């Protein structure tokens, strides 16, 4: 790690692969002039686990477990989308109750994921107390996960044809009370992010991704919505119980770090709306459909994970081992935008900008 002189007044600076600001290993090669970043090169591949190859050695059921381990914060979205893809291949129609329960699990994970990203942003600004506070609020959601599903990270809720774990009426009451508890706390946090001069000074107007660049690069999720692009799979091609539930797509047109954070914070409230509707309208009936004969076919499915669109493609050959399983994760689409966001910004903001796309390295490299 030496300060290589690359000629002129610039020098190169490594960000990663191991860096306090990055939760996962990825290597940014920054060309820096004074404190200003002139060029960004990205090298990845440190956490490649060969998951697509592993998927074509396991049967369809075991792959549910495998896909849930692609990523930690959006683990549920992966098994969710995978199960949807398999159900499409099999032509399975899942019970109505399972659709609602899937949305419930997905939205609970979304709240926890968005809060985690917001907390990390506070940590990167050096605002330790805010970080601790947000993590403390997030803990309520973690408790919900643990109480309802028995796990704090990987919920193991989805399975082919429906869901594994049914939610009792008492648990629904508990979930609603947890949301009641979280709401005022989150309103306060949203207020801090909207008004605190320290937070605004470090995030507003920085890491700009203009709308046309966002379109050109095909960014997804809160990154796209933070640049004013109305992109939400839940609305664009509704799945599970989403067509029957009311929620809004949050849009902010600031195109900066702060705008993306605001999208996330506002989306948490939309997730609360969805969770409350799920709890109140949860239909009765079975939670799982019976399995069908596996045929030779191909199918795909897409959902809106906390970071954006997750896409799964599956091809079967009549056996229970998939011939091909391929997925595209949101961070893969958002990576390229970093080059635009980081150009001509300060070294101090590099970590904040990286965090603002909520990168998931192990997803992307799998």
């Amino acid at each position, binding site marked *: *790690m*030496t*300060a290589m002189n690359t000629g002129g007044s610039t*020098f*190169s*600076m*490594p960000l990663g692969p191991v*860096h*306090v*600001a990055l939760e996962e290993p990825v290597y940014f090669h920054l060309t*820096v002039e*004074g*404190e200003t970043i002139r060029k960004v090169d990205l090298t990845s591949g440190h956490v490649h686990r060969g998951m697509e190859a592993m998927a074509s050695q396991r049967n369809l059921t075991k792959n549910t477990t495998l896909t849930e381990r692609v990523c930690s914060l959006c683990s549920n979205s992966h098994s969710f989308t995978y199960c949807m893809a398999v159900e499409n291949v099999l032509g399975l129609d899942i019970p109505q109750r399972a659709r609602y329960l899937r949305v419930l699990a997905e939205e609970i994970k979304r709240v926890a994921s968005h809060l985690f990203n917001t907390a990390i942003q*506070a*940590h*990167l*600004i*050096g*605002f*330790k*107390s*805010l970080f*601790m*506070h947000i993590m*403390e609020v997030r803990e309520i959601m973690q408790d919900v996960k643990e109480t309802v599903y028995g796990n704090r990270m990987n919920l193991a809720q989805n399975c082919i044809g429906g869901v594994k774990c049914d939610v009792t009426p008492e648990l629904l009451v508990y979930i609603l009370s947890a949301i009641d508890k979280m709401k005022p706390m989150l309103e306060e946090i949203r207020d801090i992010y909207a008004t605190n001069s*320290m*937070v605004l*000074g*470090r995030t507003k107007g920085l890491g700009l991704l203009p709308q046309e660049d966002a379109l050109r690069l095909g960014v997804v999720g809160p990154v796209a919505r933070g640049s004013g692009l109305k992109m939400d799979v839940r609305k664009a091609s509704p799945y599970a119980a989403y067509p029957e539930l009311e929620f809004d797509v949050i849009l902010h047109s600031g195109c900066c770090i702060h705008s993306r954070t605001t999208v996330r914070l506002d989306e948490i409230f939309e997730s609360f709306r969805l969770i409350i509707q799920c709890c109140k309208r949860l239909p009765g009936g079975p939670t799982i459909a019976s399995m069908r004969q596996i045929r030779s076919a191909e199918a795909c499915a897409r959902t809106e994970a906390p970071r954006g669109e997750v896409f799964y493609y599956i091809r079967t050959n009549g056996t229970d081992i998939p011939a091909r399983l391929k997925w595209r994760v949101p961070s893969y689409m958002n990576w390229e935008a970093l080059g635009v966001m980081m150009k001509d910004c*300060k*070294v*101090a*903001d*590099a*970590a904040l900008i990286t965090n603002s796309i909520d990168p998931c390295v192990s997803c992307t490299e799998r």
Partner: protein
Amino acid sequence: MTDTLFAILHMAIFPGGIFALTLGFFYKSLDRRVEARLQRRVGPPLIQPWLDAAKLLTKETMIPRTACRSVFLLAPVFGFTGMAVCAAFIPVPGVYAGLSNMGDLLVIFYLLPMPAIALMLGGSASSSPFGALGFSREMLLMLAYETPLLMILLSVAMLVGKSLGAESSGAEFSLLKIIAWQQENGSLGFNPAMIPALLAYLLFLPGTMGVAPFDVAEAETELLEGPLLEYGGPLLALFSVTSAFKTFVVTGLGVALFFPGTISSWWPINLVCFVLKCLGLMLFSLTLVKSATGRFRIDQAFRFYVTVPTALALCSLILVWVM
């Protein structure tokens, strides 16, 4: 001969050396504990800085292959020496009057930036790009916060000097006389003309101690501790010891400049009083500020120092001038 011996004793035992180190480490751990409590955590035990330093002392000293060896090794020693000497100049009102009787305020002003210079030297000698960036940030920040400090010291010296009249030629730089004057005429912290200077001093503290919101040079999440990145083992321990000394020096100086009043003629009570006053100063201007803010970017920190504290200090200076 005896003077030299006493000076050495003052540097090694009281108020420098062992006393300053114990107090510095005590403040550091208390700072961490109070911050933890403010964040609803438990925080480390009070003995933690000692344990950390002891552990670091048992570790190997690693020197990067591309580093400038001599500077890399000497920088922490340089900073430590500066602070160790400086600690002996800090008077403990009612207990100890300070090392020299003449011009010690100026000596302190020259010794105070030594840890920052050591950090800059070490950072640039480590050959790490993070160290280099930390170096440039530390230098900028130092330029910004030393100006208000100079103005604060000048306004104190001028106020006391004017009052003493012919004895001192316009400004009084002897801390001993400044304290004696305040014990007779009331603490400067309660003097309306000096309140802006006191505020400026409170704002100067987080900058010189390199804590949030002014921890830009070490910025863990940006520069991975910047200049300290390549340091480990005994050398890093030396930096933490230096920082403990500095905590004692800057809070002690604050007490001497603004609140040197004593409540008793019995020295143990005065000593406890001094410790508590320093503690109050530290908790108020370091711990509370640290737990209520994030980190400035270097340009924001620089702009802050050249505007707010400088304006406050200038305000006091002008008030003292015209009064």
